[in-house]
């Protein structure tokens, strides 16, 4: 009796833990529909901050879900995925060398842990111009027709500053908390770096955000590098991402995350039942 109780408790704990992970659902999209080789430079950045998303071991990038980069230019700031960008560069070079007109394997050259999966945090580009944020959202395989973009005012979070401090990347960071679209977040920002931005849509703090996560640690961004150099800020062409609204994009992203196969209209030829809906924890709950 006692044994079964303990086993059940352990199993429940494990399942509970498993449920707390966001299941990256859906397959990675085809790069041609994303416009991988049609990016153009819209500004030049001299500072770039790299963030590891959901890293199991901060020193080993093959355990990251994504390596994102925040590029700080004069008029434009942008957060996007460096794994996706560098794999695009490699594919462009590979195609040019081999003169290959066929298909390059979809997940060739993409690094990170779940490289064959789609997540809106990996495949969306967030461009900030002044007080407006534009998201160019790319949807997973077979759903690329849904690719769209929208703009919303930025920054949106109302932060409360706290007194605790933490050292990240050699900078002394102060803690700040906020509640944003149904989730509570904790951020650590470096006041000695006068950039009011951070990963994803985070920003508005008097310093660069070096670590931010939700209180349940489902989504954790941590800065792994601050680099100098000349980085052209590249953007996908507008015609591949027609204008839409945030609500519409958010609902569709939720749909593809929760029940990918139903959403793309997949049916089993052998009459097998659909896999159950996944318990998905979206970053924006509303």
């Amino acid at each position, binding site marked *: 009796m006692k044994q079964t109780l303990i086993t059940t408790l352990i199993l429940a704990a494990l399942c509970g833990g498993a449920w707390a992970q966001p299941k990256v659902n859906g397959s990675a999209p085809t790069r041609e529909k994303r416009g991988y080789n049609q990016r153009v430079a819209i500004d*030049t950045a001299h500072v770039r901050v790299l963030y590891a998303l959901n890293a199991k071991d901060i020193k080993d990038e093959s355990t990251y879900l994504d*390596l994102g980069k925040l590029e700080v230019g004069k008029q434009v700031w942008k957060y996007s995925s460096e794994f996706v960008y560098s794999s695009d*560069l*490699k594919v462009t070079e590979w195609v040019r060398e081999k003169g290959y007109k066929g298909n390059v394997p979809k997940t060739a050259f993409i690094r990170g842990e779940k490289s064959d999966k789609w997540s809106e945090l990996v495949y969306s580009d967030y461009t900030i111009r002044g007080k407006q944020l534009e998201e160019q959202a790319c949807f997973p395989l077979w759903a690329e027709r849904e690719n769209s973009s929208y703009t919303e005012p930025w920054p949106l979070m109302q932060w409360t500053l706290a007194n605790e401090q933490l050292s990240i990347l*050699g900078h002394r960071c*102060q803690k700040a908390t906020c509640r944003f679209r149904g989730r509570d977040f904790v951020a650590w920002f470096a006041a000695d*770096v006068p950039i009011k931005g951070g990963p994803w849509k985070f920003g508005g703090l008097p310093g660069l955000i070096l670590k931010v996560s939700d209180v349940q640690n489902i989504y954790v961004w941590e800065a792994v590098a601050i680099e100098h150099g000349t980085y052209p800020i590249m953007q996908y062409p507008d015609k591949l991402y027609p204008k839409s609204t945030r609500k519409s994009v958010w609902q569709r992203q939720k749909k593809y995350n929760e029940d990918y196969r139903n959403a793309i209209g997949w049916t089993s030829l052998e009459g097998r039942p659909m896999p159950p809906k996944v318990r998905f924890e979206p970053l924006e709950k509303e």
Partner: protein
Amino acid sequence: MHRLIITAMLAFAAIAASAQTVIEGTVADAQGKHVEAYVSVAPKGTGNILVFADTDAKGHYRLEFTTEADSVTVSASGLAIGSHTKQVANRSQRLDFCVKEQAMQLKEVTVRAQKIRQNGDTLSYLVGAYQQQGDRVIGDVLKHMPGIEVADNGGIKYNGKTIKKFYVEEMDLLQGRYGLATNNINASDVATVQVLEHHQPVKMLQDKELSDDVAINLKLKNSAKGTVAINTMLGGGAQQAGGWHIGKRPLTDSQAAIGQSPLWTAEVVGMYFAKRRQNMTLYKGNNTGDDVSKELTQHYSSVNSVSLYPFCPTGALMPNGSGLPQKRTFDNHSQILTMNHLEKPNKDTELGLNIAYYNDRIRREGSSVGDQFVSDDSRLLASEAMTSETKLNNLNIQGRYNRNAPNGFVANVLKVDTHWNSDRVDGLLASERTGTDPANYGNNRVRQHFDRPQLSVSNTFNTIRNIGKNTFDLHFSAGYAHRPNTLTVGVDSLLQGTSTAYTQDVNSHHIAASFNTSYAIRVGQRFRFSYGVSATANLHGIVTDLDGFTPPAEHAQLSNDLWYNTYCVALAQTYKYETPNFYIGLGLPLELYTQTLDDKIRNDQHGYTHLLFFPSLSANWSISRDLWLNAGANYSKTVGDPGGIYSGYIMSNYRAFQRSYVEQLRPRNAMVSVRFKLL
């Protein structure tokens, strides 16, 4: 009891209320303009920010906070201004910041085990994002793109490196005259500007040779492709002008205005860019002082053709220029007419024809006056006034065949260059002494006419083939140039009443041929050895005749008729070791060099043969992205040239007559150099 608690709470509230501090003010730069910034406040010591606020449109901010500390640190920070801090007492006050722009100082840190490298080498700039008000042609927008610099003469550099190729839609129509593209293609027709780093134009060598060259490619909008676009521009005006003609105009009259009227400027530009054919034809002319020939400057040449330099040490003396901008002092009548056509019958083959004609008539005037005080009561006055008219007619035709395939490269370029130019100069020189003992030293009128046509033709052939893993390169270039020039000078001395005339004829030919082959062997990824045989021949035929000059010595020669030839056969070997960061190369060429001189007037024939060895060593090490180390050493000798071998007098200009003859042609100097550069 309750009352005690309430009083205590009220007391606390009172203390809390009185402890709230308000600091407000403005953040502005030295000119009083507002700056984008945010202001934050932290108690002195802990550094934990209490509150922060953005500055509004007027640069005003307001902070309200409560703290126990006696003093606080208030910081105004922003991307463009960095961080400015002030320490103040913890009480309500007004605090203004006057800041200036400064670059952000950030340490570069990384925690990951490896760094990501950028390995794409094509960078695209969206023209729409960089275009500003007033930009009409693509050359104006290129100036705004970071990394790209456009010099005054139209030359383009990327990150300090001169570009080696300029393409429009991946085709090189203009063959180095890219000023025609940057000054005439509308900015609204170009979609993106691509910068191609590590560019290797020869498809065969793309995986074999690491190239450090940079190229630019313009990608046009679909609306600009496949259509014939014609732009025209006409302008006119008038200015105060005077009569101007050598010989008729009174030279001592400095009141009459010179210049031309009416003024005119005209342009007709036609362009066609399609997938298999490109054409750019244009005509530009003006007499308003614009030097249109600048657009025809050839910034790079597609082949190494043999250089032709027919010998002519004679020239007319021209009036000096002023230091003012050329557009204000250039009295011209310039026209250019150019036609550039490119056909691409299939993916790898190209046929090109480039014709450029430049016609100009340039007038110049210069004068100088010298006034010297010889003693208390006498002065020496010397004056020189010159007017000149230069007529230029340059025609340049280049025909090209290219086959650039992954399995072989063939190129053949035929160039024809003709000039028929002349200078006509009219000068008045006077010199006299005034004062107690006046004397007139001379009052001479000098008329010069220098007729200087020239013709050169050259053909260059180049092929690169693969033999297994190694490459074989063959290059052959031959050319002929002819320069029959005549300088006629007439000097009228008004004082002595005499007139002298000199005529110098120089008729020179230059035949040059150069042949070289090289065979490059790759051993592994890093070693490259190349061996080659090369042969060059330079034949100079010089016939000169001088009339009207009385030489100082008797029986001195006034004409020349000689052939001065040099022949060289060389065996070259180079050894290279190359990694992406390090390069070292050793060259050990061995040359057999022969010079012959055949002087038909003195019936003199000489020949000299030398065996020359010129070793050289160079190394280049990229320590990091911004630090290079460069070192080299070489040994070379120079041997005589035709300037030292003519024994008959040649008039260089009306003031100098010279001859020179060196008894024996021998190596003049040897040089050893070692260089070291840390960038």
